[in-house]
C-alpha cells in the first residue's frame, strides 16, 4: 500500500473538564475513503475539527505526508492540503459560486481581482467533478442544498486538497442528490484524494468506504477494512451499551388513555400524509435523519407552519391551529430544537424566562405561577444562583430545565419535544427523562423528536420514522437501531432484519 497521507495518533481533547476524545487515531492513504462512524456524542465531529484546526488538541500527534502539523486555524490546514466540508455550510448566500470558492484567496491580475480567471477556474473545477448544471456566476442563495454542498467540495478542491473531510455530507440531501455525491467521491478517489467520511447512514458507509473506524464515547472501538464488517457487527460496535441504565421505566400508575392528538392525512409544504394517534400517557418517538421533516412536523402541529391538508384533532375535537398563540391556548407546548435561538431570551433572568409563556398568553395566572415557580425549579433541580440569574450563564442542562419549567407552567396536554436532550450532560438528560415519565403519568401525551436512537428506543412507547417528509414507518417500542436506521434512510431492504442487532 502507498505511503499514508495523514496519520493521527492518540488525539485527546477535553471541554470544560469533560473528556470527549481519549486517544483516538487513524491513518488515511491517498485514494482511500475512510468512514468515521459512531453515535451522536461519540466524538466524530470533535476529531474532525481538531484535524481541521478549528479546535486545538490537548494531546497526540497529526502528521500530513510525514510532517508533523499543528494547525491553529482552518486556513492553515487548507494550505497544508487538508480541507473540510463542515456540516453547517460556510458559504455566503449573497455571493456567487466563484466568489465563494475563492473567498479570501481571490486571484489577482495587475492588483485587481481577476473575475474572469476566478470564474474560469471554478468552472474548470466543476467540470472536473462532472458538474455542468452549476453556473459559477450564480449567487449561492439560488442553489439547492445539494448544489451548495458541491460548492463546498469545489472550495475544498480549489486549495488542491489531498485530504477532504466530509461531516455528514448527505444529511440534507435527497436520494438522487446522494447519488451525485457518490459520483463526485468516486472521481476524487480516482484522483488520489483521501476522504474522511463521517455519516450516520450505514448504507453510505458500506457503499463508499474502504476502511471504517468506529468511535464510541470518545474512544476508538475498531478500525479496519470495510469488507470485514457487516451492518449488524457495525451497529453492535457503535451501540454496545446497555440502554436500560440510562432510561427510567414508566412510573407506576401510568395508563394509556384516550387519544389526545390525532392527525389524519395531514400535510403542508414540508411534510405529507402524516397519520398519528398520540394518546394520553404515551410517549411517541419521532426518528429520522436531519432534514427528514421531523422538526417540520412539530412546527406544523404547533401552528408555526400550519397543516394545509388533512385533519387534526385535539382531545376528540377537530381543530386548525394556525399560530403558536392559539397552540398554547389549546394546551400544546413545543420545546424547540435550538434552545438558545428559539427557546430562551438569553440575557433575561431565569424568572423572566420561566414566566415567558404565562405572561404573554395567560397573563392573569402570572402571580399564581410566580409563587409556585421556586418549587417547580427545585423539583427540576435547576442549579442557578437564584431566579434573577441570567440564563446565558447557566449550563446547557439547566437552560433546558428552564425551558421545560416555562412550558410546565402552562399545564400542557400535549408536549412536543424537539431534541430535548441535545447538548446537555448525562445528569440533566436523566432529569429530562424522569420529567417525561412524570408528565405521562399525569396523562400528558408527548411527541419526542430525537436524533439519538438509544433515546428514542429507551423512552418511546411507539416510534414514528420520518423519511423525506413522510412517515416511512411506525415501529413498536424497543425496536432495534438497525430497523429504525433502515426506515430513516429508506433502505429497509439493504439491511438484514432477520438478524437485527440487539
Amino acid at each position: 500500500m502507498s505511503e499514508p497521507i495523514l496519520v493521527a495518533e492518540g488525539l485527546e481533547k477535553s471541554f470544560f473538564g469533560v473528556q470527549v476524545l481519549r486517544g483516538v487515531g487513524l491513518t488515511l492513504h491517498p485514494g482511500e475513503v475512510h468512514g468515521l462512524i459512531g453515535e451522536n456524542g461519540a466524538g466524530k465531529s470533535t476529531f474532525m475539527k481538531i484535524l481541521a484546526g478549528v479546535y486545538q488538541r490537548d494531546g497526540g500527534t497529526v502528521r500530513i505526508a510525514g510532517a508533523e502539523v499543528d494547525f491553529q486555524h482552518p486556513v492553515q490546514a487548507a494550505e497544508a492540503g487538508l480541507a473540510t466540508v463542515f456540516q453547517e455550510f460556510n458559504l455566503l448566500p449573497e455571493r456567487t459560486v466563484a466568489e465563494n470558492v475563492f473567498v479570501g484567496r481571490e486571484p489577482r491580475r495587475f492588483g485587481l481581482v481577476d473575475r474572469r480567471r476566478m470564474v474560469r477556474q471554478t468552472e474548470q473545477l466543476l467540470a472536473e467533478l462532472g458538474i455542468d448544471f452549476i453556473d459559477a456566476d450564480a449567487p449561492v442563495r439560488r442553489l439547492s442544498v445539494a448544489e451548495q454542498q458541491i460548492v463546498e467540495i469545489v472550495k475544498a478542491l480549489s486549495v488542491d486538497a489531498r485530504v477532504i473531510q466530509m461531516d455528514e455530507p448527505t444529511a440534507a440531501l435527497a436520494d438522487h442528490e446522494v447519488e451525485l455525491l457518490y459520483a463526485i467521491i468516486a472521481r476524487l478517489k480516482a484522483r488520489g484524494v483521501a476522504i474522511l467520511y463521517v455519516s450516520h447512514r450505514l448504507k453510505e458507509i458500506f457503499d463508499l468506504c474502504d476502511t471504517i473506524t468506529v468511535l464510541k464515547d470518545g474512544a476508538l472501538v475498531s478500525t479496519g477494512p470495510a469488507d470485514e464488517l457487516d451492518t449488524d457487527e457495525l451497529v453492535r460496535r457503535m451501540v454496545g451499551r446497555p440502554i436500560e441504565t440510562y432510561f427510567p421505566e414508566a412510573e407506576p400508575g401510568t395508563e394509556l388513555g384516550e387519544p389526545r392528538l390525532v392527525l389524519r392525512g395531514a400535510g403542508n409544504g414540508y411534510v405529507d400524509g402524516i397519520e398519528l394517534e398520540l394518546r394520553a400517557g404515551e410517549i411517541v418517538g419521532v426518528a429520522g435523519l436531519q432534514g427528514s421533516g421531523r422538526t417540520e412536523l412539530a412546527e406544523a402541529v404547533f401552528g408555526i407552519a400550519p397543516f394545509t391538508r388533512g385533519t387534526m384533532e385535539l382531545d376528540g375535537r377537530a381543530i386548525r391551529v394556525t399560530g403558536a398563540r392559539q397552540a398554547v391556548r389549546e394546551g400544546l407546548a413545543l420545546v424547540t430544537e435550538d434552545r438558545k435561538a428559539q427557546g430562551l431570551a438569553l440575557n433575561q433572568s431565569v424568572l423572566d424566562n420561566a414566566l415567558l409563556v404565562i405572561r404573554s398568553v395567560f397573563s392573569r395566572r402570572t402571580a399564581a405561577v410566580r409563587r409556585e415557580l421556586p418549587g417547580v425549579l427545585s423539583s427540576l433541580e435547576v442549579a442557578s444562583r437564584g431566579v434573577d440569574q441570567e440564563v446565558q450563564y447557566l449550563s446547557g442542562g439547566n437552560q433546558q430545565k428552564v425551558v421545560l419549567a416555562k412550558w410546565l407552567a402552562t399545564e400542557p396536554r400535549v408536549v412536543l419535544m424537539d431534541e430535548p436532550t441535545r447538548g446537555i450532560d448525562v445528569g440533566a438528560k436523566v432529569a429530562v427523562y424522569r420529567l417525561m415519565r412524570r408528565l405521562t403519568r399525569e396523562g400528558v401525551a408527548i411527541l419526542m423528536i430525537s436524533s439519538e436512537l438509544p433515546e428514542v428506543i429507551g423512552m418511546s412507547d411507539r416510534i414514528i420514522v420520518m423519511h423525506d417528509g413522510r412517515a416511512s414507518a411506525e415501529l413498536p417500542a424497543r425496536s432495534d437501531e438497525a430497523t429504525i436506521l433502515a426506515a430513516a434512510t429508506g433502505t429497509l431492504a439493504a439491511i438484514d432484519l432477520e438478524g437485527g442487532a440487539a
Partner: protein
Amino acid sequence: MSAATPAARRRRGRLDSSLIVGIALVVVIAIGAILVATVGRNFFSPGNIRDILTGMSVLGFVAIGQTLVVLCASLDLSVLYVISLSSLIAADLMAGNPANIPLALAASLGVAALIGLANGLIVTKLKVNGFIATLGTGLIIKGFLDSNYKGTSGDVPMEFRLIGATGLGPVPVSTILMLAVAELVWLFLGRTRTGHHIYAVGGNEQVARLSGIRTARPVIAAHVLCSMSAALAGLLLASRSGVGNPTFGAQGGYDLLSIAAVVLGGTLLLGGRGSVWGTIGGVAIFAVVDNVMSVMQVNPFLKDVVRGIVIVAAVAVYASRSVERRRPRFDAGGAPPAPAAASPAAVDPAATTEGAAR
C-alpha cells in the same frame, strides 16, 4: 436542460435589487412627470433636470460612502459633522486664494480619513457597535464645531466655486464627479480583494474569518472611505455657497437620509448585499420626489410625510422578498415538486437559503 439552466439562472440573477430600484425610479419619474404636467410645467425641461441632478450630488457623495459601511454591517452617523467640518477646513485654508486649493482639499480629506480610521478602529478593535461608535465620534466633532465656530467661516475662491456652479448642458459638474466616484467605488467593490472582503465580512463574519480573511481591515477601509466621501460632500457644499458652515450637515439631515438612500437602493442593512448603483438609484428617487413636490409647491410637512412613506414602503417591499423560507418539499396537492437538482431553474427565487440557514 443543463445547457439552458445557467443562462436562465443568470438572467434571474440580474433581476435583483438594483433592477428593482431602477424600475422604481422609472415609475417615480413617470408619476412625477405626469404630476408636474398637471400644473402646466415640463418635468424634462433642462432647467428641471439640472435641479434634480444638483439635488442628487451632495446626498450622492454621502450615500456612496455610507453604502460601503452598511455593506460591512456597520453604520456611520458621524458623516453629518464630517461634512460640516470638511467645508470649514477647506474654506478656511483656501482663504480666497486659488493657490491654496490643493492644500485645502488634502487637509479636509486627510482629516476625514483620520476620523474614518478612528471610527473603523473603534468598531473593530473596541467592538463598539457602529451606530454608537459613530454617534460618539460625531458628537465629539460637533462639540469641536460648536465651540470653535459661531457661524459661516472662510472664503472659497471663484476657481473652486465653479465646480458647484458650472455644468455640461443640463448636467452639473458636481453630478459628473459624484457619478465618477460611484464608478470608482463600484470598481473597488467588484475588482479589489478589499472590496470582495467587505461583502464577505458583512455577509457572515464567521465565514469570512474561517476563510482566512483578516476581518477588521475591510471594515476599517469602509469607514475611512465613507468619511472621505462625506468630506467630498462638504467640499461641494462649500463650493456652492462660497463659505464653510458648521451646520451644513445638519441642514441636510445627511446622516439618516444617506442611510435611507442606501436601504432604498436595496442594500441590506444587515450587510453583505447591495450595490453602489442601487444607492445612486435610491438617491435619484429621493431627488425626483423632492423635485416634484417643490415644483408643485407641496407644503414642507407633507414633503416629509411623503419621504417617510417612500422609505418605509421600499423596505417593506424588500422585507417581503427576503423572508428566509425553507424550500417546500410538497406542493398543495401533496405531490413532491420537481427534484431540485434536476431542474434548479424551477425553484422559486424567493424561497432561498435552506443550506445557508443550516
